[in-house]
């Protein structure tokens, strides 16, 4: 059968397509149902965040960087603050560090819940999407009561956090993570025991370890391929070295591993949050030096943290002036979408959709 040649045709998937998660465009060369060649076209969301940041003061950069990766805005706040703190060698109060960890991990859970829903929707099950978002709202409520925003928080500031948590936060947070850890059974019951789901994800779109490392893939996608590399353990920042948690690692690097790994990460994040809430000290939430007109001394550094998609980095150069000389933002999705043509071909279009969903690409991180 294979020698019967048929015409290949080119299909544009995107920029407006339900499963490209934003405005990515994949130019697919297809032979019937099979994708023969993928050519990603990006830039539809290139908003020049880096240029804007060069013309803002340090504090003004933070809300702009919120939009760099809006699903986990806290990480964006944090990575920029951390970069500035490293250049300035600034101390951060203990309480602020704890609050940061709580917020970062809550945001990771929120992001993974969104991933859970969107992936299920891309594979055709609509209901999990709403379940995922339902629990995400609980976390959004927590953020809202802390910083007044649902999506772009502008909470973690240079040298601390912008304001203290309200009294109700702690009980609410404990309740939320309790509900989420109970609902995890629902999520898994809905999909993991479903033979169709297993058939659609197991063994599909395997990303080999070597390819993943060569193309700079990071985060859950890299770990699903069997590489134990999590910056929270391997390049510790903040106070992650004080907490007891595991790094889930996959074996096969297929869609199922990537999906499962994120669900397991939710569990680990819940562990971290519980420990952080238990150990939350009293005290200042901000370094005294941190003001709206903060100026960092000259210096440069590449700072990277582990956000829900992988390595998020900021290359920050300060020349001692009011504004940073250069802010280069690196998002994990940039590498993920770059590696896609190298392992995503010769599969069904349905598998491509599943693959794209489990890579958890988000376009502002790619285009900036």
């Amino acid at each position, binding site marked *: 059968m294979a020698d019967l040649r048929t015409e290949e045709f080119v299909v*544009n998937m995107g*920029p407006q*397509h339900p499963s490209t998660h934003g405005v990515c*465009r994949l130019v697919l060369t297809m032979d*019937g*149902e099979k994708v023969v060649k993928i050519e990603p076209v990006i830039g539809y969301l290139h908003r020049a965040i880096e240029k804007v940041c060069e013309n803002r003061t340090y504090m003004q950069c933070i809300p702009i960087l919120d939009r760099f990766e809006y699903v986990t805005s806290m990480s964006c706040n944090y990575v920029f603050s951390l970069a500035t703190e490293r250049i300035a060698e600034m101390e951060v109060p203990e309480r602020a560090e704890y609050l940061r960890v709580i917020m970062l991990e809550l945001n990771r859970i929120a992001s993974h819940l969104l991933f859970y829903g969107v992936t299920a929707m891309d594979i055709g099950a609509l209901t999990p999407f709403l379940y995922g978002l339902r629990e995400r709202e609980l976390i959004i409520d927590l953020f809202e009561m802390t910083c007044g925003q649902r999506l772009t928080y502008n909470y973690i500031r240079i040298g601390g956090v912008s304001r203290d948590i309200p009294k109700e936060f702690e009980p609410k947070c404990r309740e939320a993570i309790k509900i989420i850890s109970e609902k995890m059974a629902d999520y898994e019951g809905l999909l993991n025991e479903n033979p169709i789901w297993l058939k659609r994800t197991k063994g599909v779109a395997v990303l080999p370890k070597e390819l993943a490392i060569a193309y700079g893939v990071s985060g859950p996608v890299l770990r699903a391929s069997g590489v134990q590399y999590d910056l929270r353990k391997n390049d510790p920042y903040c106070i992650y070295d004080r907490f007891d948690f595991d790094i889930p690692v996959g074996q096969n690097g297929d869609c199922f591993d990537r999906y499962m790994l994120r669900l397991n990460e939710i569990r680990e994040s819940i562990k971290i949050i519980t420990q952080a809430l238990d150990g939350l000290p009293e005290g200042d939430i901000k370094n005294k030096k941190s003001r709206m007109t903060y100026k960092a001394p000259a210096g440069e550094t590449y700072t990277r943290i582990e956000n829900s998609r992988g390595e998020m980095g900021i290359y920050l150069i300060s020349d001692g002036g009011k504004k940073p000389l250069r802010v280069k933002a690196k998002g994990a999705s940039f590498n993920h979408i770059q590696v896609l043509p190298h392992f995503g071909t010769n599969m069904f279009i349905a598998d491509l959709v599943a693959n794209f969903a489990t890579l958890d690409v988000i376009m502002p991180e790619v285009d900036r």
Partner: protein
Amino acid sequence: MEGAVGMTEYLSVAFFIIAGTGIVLFTFFLARLIRPHNPYKEKSMPYECAEDPVGDSWIKFNNRFYIFALMFVIFDVEVVFLFPWAVAFGELGLFALVEMVIFILILFFGLFYAWKKGVLKWV
């Protein structure tokens, strides 16, 4: 008279075709009275995720789909034979049963052959 009754009943299909088409065309007509109609070049282009379509979509399509159509024809013919058999089964008895089992088995040899040859696998 008996035959005429039968014919009348089949006539109902013809009249339903007329009625159905008529109603659909009528709703189209009704919509045509009300709806706006404003075609221009951009609107009349095929939708391909807001991009210019590349190449023609009327192509020699992958043969995989046709294989299933061919297999379907074989089995559908079998099913056509099965219908009268099923209707008359009560009267025919054991002979019909054995015969049909043999008939189905022969066809299934074909299916298993195709299976083994990898025809059922989507390559």
